[in-house]
């Protein structure tokens, strides 16, 4: 076979070629050599001499296909109309396959003749060539185009309604459609006929099938929803809708082009969820309040695809948590309030956290709803005692960290402290908590009441992680002081005293605290004449301390000091740990058996309140006997010589070291003072950098800088007033709501 162009007799060649083309398109058996000859014929026609016969070949082929498809259509119309989609599908399958082969047969025409004359993709997109209907198409495309014109267009009405019918049947038969493959095939043909198009190749599918299908399905969903809603409980309704969602999604996968899946889903949701939103929300309250978990999960599934639909549901969820929380908090009674407070909040937190994981698939929106609910619960203050939560939480930590916590292992204590941190993060008044916590920590440290230093430090680290270094640096400072004090005591006892050849009458320890870092109330300081039994040690230590540090003065905090006193006047020796004041009182009985209260107070120069507090304990634990019920000035006290306790060592300090209500109010007022100073400092800082600022902008800035508490607007206003009075700033002259900084 020569590739040289030669003269061709078109009609003869086409006659042969046409037979083969018919064979190919009807999928008959074509021997290999015939195929090759015809393939060569196509080539020869295209390159024919003196002029190419390609265009002629194209037109003839087009006519042939045209007639062929028309013939097929006629054949189809003679067959039973009931089976139209099956018959159509059979024809399509064969034709589609045939056209692929035909495309191959015309390879030369396609590649060399047609494709060259085609507009490139770039020209199509960027050029403004009108798309020419007369443009030649590759044979494959031509075949499909002809099919579209001669087959789909005349049949589209009956085909589409048949498909819709089939899908409807499928719905009614729970997805057991016998001719699923056929339906899918027909639908695919709508997409496939446009597969050569570079743009909008699913347009036909869209208009022809998708639109009517969505409309019909919508109608179906609407009526189903209506029927179900009338006849079912909400539980059943949601179950059915979810089942339908799943089935429809499978149906989409089985029949439709992938572009339709989302549209069908939206359609489902519109008619079955959107239209019933109000009804669903109405039920949400009872579902949530009864905690019907399956229903809750189902409702979430129904609502989740549109996030704004979830909002009322989430609000309902949040309100429910708050309601439960507050109800349980209001039931707290008894003296172990702090424990129940934390336990209740944690049990609620855990319960709903688990619920969110299980039911709401850990949806972030729900987690934040839980957070909001917890904030409301934690900061709930029934009678405007907003400090209550901070105090309870601090007390909770105190109980855990104190000695004598009920035999909990270190692990358990740590877990419980982690709980406290969770609650702490929800707390609005973090500064209030800090004050309470640091007071309690100070007491634990000074009275050596801590269960373990490791636990203390790990708690402070946790607070630091939660709220930053600034927040805990005073607490750290307290620890450092304790360590320094230990070293000092050691050095004093083992180096200084032996060097100076001094022997103390008692076993001496000190805690040297840095004045500003410890939350020590000033009010407890009282005049006191220290018994000379102590003075030797104190003086020695002061000397030692002055050698160690220059320019520092020590102030002894007697009300915080304690010691161990040996009672030798009894049958059995007792070693009792008590406050310094109590030791001083007992020392007075060295030379006498009885003393009146006023004598004691005068000798020791104690103020009456302190005396009373300390002495009452001594009387209560029967070391001293009083001749009146209440201690008065002239009450006579005497040593109880029959005192007996089965334990040799005991402490009587506990009741004195408890937080008193007065201390609580002190803490609160000191927090409020601190807040005012903080706000004022913040205002000055802001004004200094801004010079001129509107009232609202200033308030916003202040609020954004207060991390550890939420200042009230009235408090901020008062602070602004104060600063104006102090002439740090003034109201701007020509503007009503502006402030300017005074340098």
């Amino acid at each position: 076979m020569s590739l040289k162009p030669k003269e061709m007799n078109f009609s003869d060649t086409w006659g042969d070629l046409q037979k083969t083309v018919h064979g190919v398109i009807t999928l008959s058996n074509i021997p290999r050599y015939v195929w090759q000859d015809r393939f060569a014929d196509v080539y020869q026609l295209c390159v024919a001499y003196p002029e190419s016969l390609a265009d002629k070949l194209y037109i003839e082929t087009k006519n042939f296909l045209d007639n062929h498809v028309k013939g097929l259509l006629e054949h189809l119309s003679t067959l039973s109309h009931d089976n139209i989609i099956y018959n159509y599908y059979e024809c399509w399958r064969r034709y589609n396959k045939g056209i692929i082969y035909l495309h191959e047969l015309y390879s030369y025409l396609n590649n060399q003749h047609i494709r060259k004359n085609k507009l490139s993709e770039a020209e199509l997109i960027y050029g403004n060539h009108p798309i020419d209907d007369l443009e030649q198409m590759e044979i494959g495309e031509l075949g499909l185009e002809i099919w579209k014109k001669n087959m789909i267009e005349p049949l589209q009405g009956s085909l589409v309604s048949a498909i819709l019918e089939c899908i409807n049947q499928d719905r009614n038969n729970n997805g057991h459609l016998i001719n699923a493959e056929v339906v899918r095939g027909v639908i695919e043909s709508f997409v496939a006929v446009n597969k050569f198009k570079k743009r909008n190749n699913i347009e036909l599918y869209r208009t022809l099938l998708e639109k009517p299908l969505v409309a019909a399905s919508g109608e179906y969903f609407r009526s189903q929803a209506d029927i179900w809603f009338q006849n079912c409980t909400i539980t059943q309704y949601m179950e059915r809708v979810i089942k339908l969602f799943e089935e429809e999604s499978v149906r989409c996968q089985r029949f439709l082009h992938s572009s339709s899946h989302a549209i069908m889903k939206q359609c489902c949701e519109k008619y079955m969820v959107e239209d019933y939103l109000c009804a669903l929300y109405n039920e949400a309250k009872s579902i949530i309040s009864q905690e019907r978990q399956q229903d809750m999960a189902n409702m979430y599934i129904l609502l989740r695809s549109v996030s704004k639909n979830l909002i009322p549901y989430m609000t309902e969820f949040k309100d429910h948590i708050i309601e439960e929380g507050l109800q349980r908090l209001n039931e707290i009674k008894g003296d172990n309030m702090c424990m129940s407070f934390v336990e209740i909040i944690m049990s609620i937190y855990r319960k709903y956290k688990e619920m969110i994981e299980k039911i709401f698939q850990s949806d972030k929106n729900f987690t934040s709803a839980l957070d909001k609910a917890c904030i409301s619960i934690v900061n709930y203050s029934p009678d405007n005692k907003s400090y209550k939560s901070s105090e309870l939480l601090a007390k909770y930590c105190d109980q855990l960290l104190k000695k004598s916590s009920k035999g909990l292992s270190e692990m358990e204590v740590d877990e419980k402290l982690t709980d406290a941190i969770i609650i702490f993060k929800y707390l609005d008044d973090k500064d209030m908590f800090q004050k309470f916590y640091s007071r309690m920590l100070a007491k634990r440290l000074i009275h050596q009441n801590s269960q373990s230093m490791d636990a203390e430090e790990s708690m402070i680290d946790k607070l630091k992680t939660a709220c930053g270094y600034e927040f805990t640096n005073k607490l750290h400072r307290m620890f450092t002081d304790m360590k320094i004090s230990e070293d000092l005591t050691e050095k004093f006892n083992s180096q200084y005293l032996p060097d100076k050849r001094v022997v103390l009458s008692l076993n001496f320890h000190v805690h040297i605290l840095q004045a500003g870092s410890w939350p020590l109330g000033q009010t407890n300081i009282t005049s006191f004449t220290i018994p000379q039994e102590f003075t030797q040690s104190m003086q020695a230590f002061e000397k030692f301390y002055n050698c160690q540090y220059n320019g520092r003065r020590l102030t002894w905090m007697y009300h915080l000091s304690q010691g161990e006193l040996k009672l030798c006047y009894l049958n059995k020796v007792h070693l009792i740990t008590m406050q310094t004041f109590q030791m001083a009182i007992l020392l007075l009985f060295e030379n006498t058996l009885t003393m009146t209260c006023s004598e004691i107070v005068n000798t020791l120069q104690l103020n009456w309140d302190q005396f009373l507090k300390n002495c009452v304990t001594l009387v209560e634990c029967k070391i001293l006997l009083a001749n009146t019920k209440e201690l008065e000035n002239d009450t006579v006290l005497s040593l109880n010589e029959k005192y007996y306790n089965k334990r040799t060592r005991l402490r009587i300090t506990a009741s004195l070291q408890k937080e008193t209500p007065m201390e609580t109010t002190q803490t609160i007022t000191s927090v409020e003072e601190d807040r005012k100073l903080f706000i004022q400092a913040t205002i000055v800082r802001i004004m200094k950098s801004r010079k001129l600022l509107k009232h609202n902008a200033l308030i916003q800035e202040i609020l954004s800088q207060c991390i550890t508490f939420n200042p009230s607007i009235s408090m901020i206003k008062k602070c602004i007033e104060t600063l104006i009075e102090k002439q740090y700033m003034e109201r701007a002259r020509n503007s009503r709501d502006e402030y300017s900084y005074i340098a």
Partner: protein
Amino acid sequence: MKVKIKSWVGVATWRWVANDDTCGICRLAFENCCPDCKLPGDDCPLVWGQCSHCYHMHCIMKWLNSQQVRQLCPMCRQEWKFKE
């Protein structure tokens, strides 16, 4: 002896004893720290010169480092020597 003190844990707080309330360089109270520090106390100590004037250590060090010829006390212009 009827009673005998076995042991005693004394608690005391300390403050600076200076001849002035505020530091002559930064004008901040000795109770507080110098402007560069966050916490008063051991982290921001006071120092005394032989002329008996007292400053935050950080403040006087800054001052002395900035003096090129002779190191003088900023208050009395005597040569600055740390008091032992």
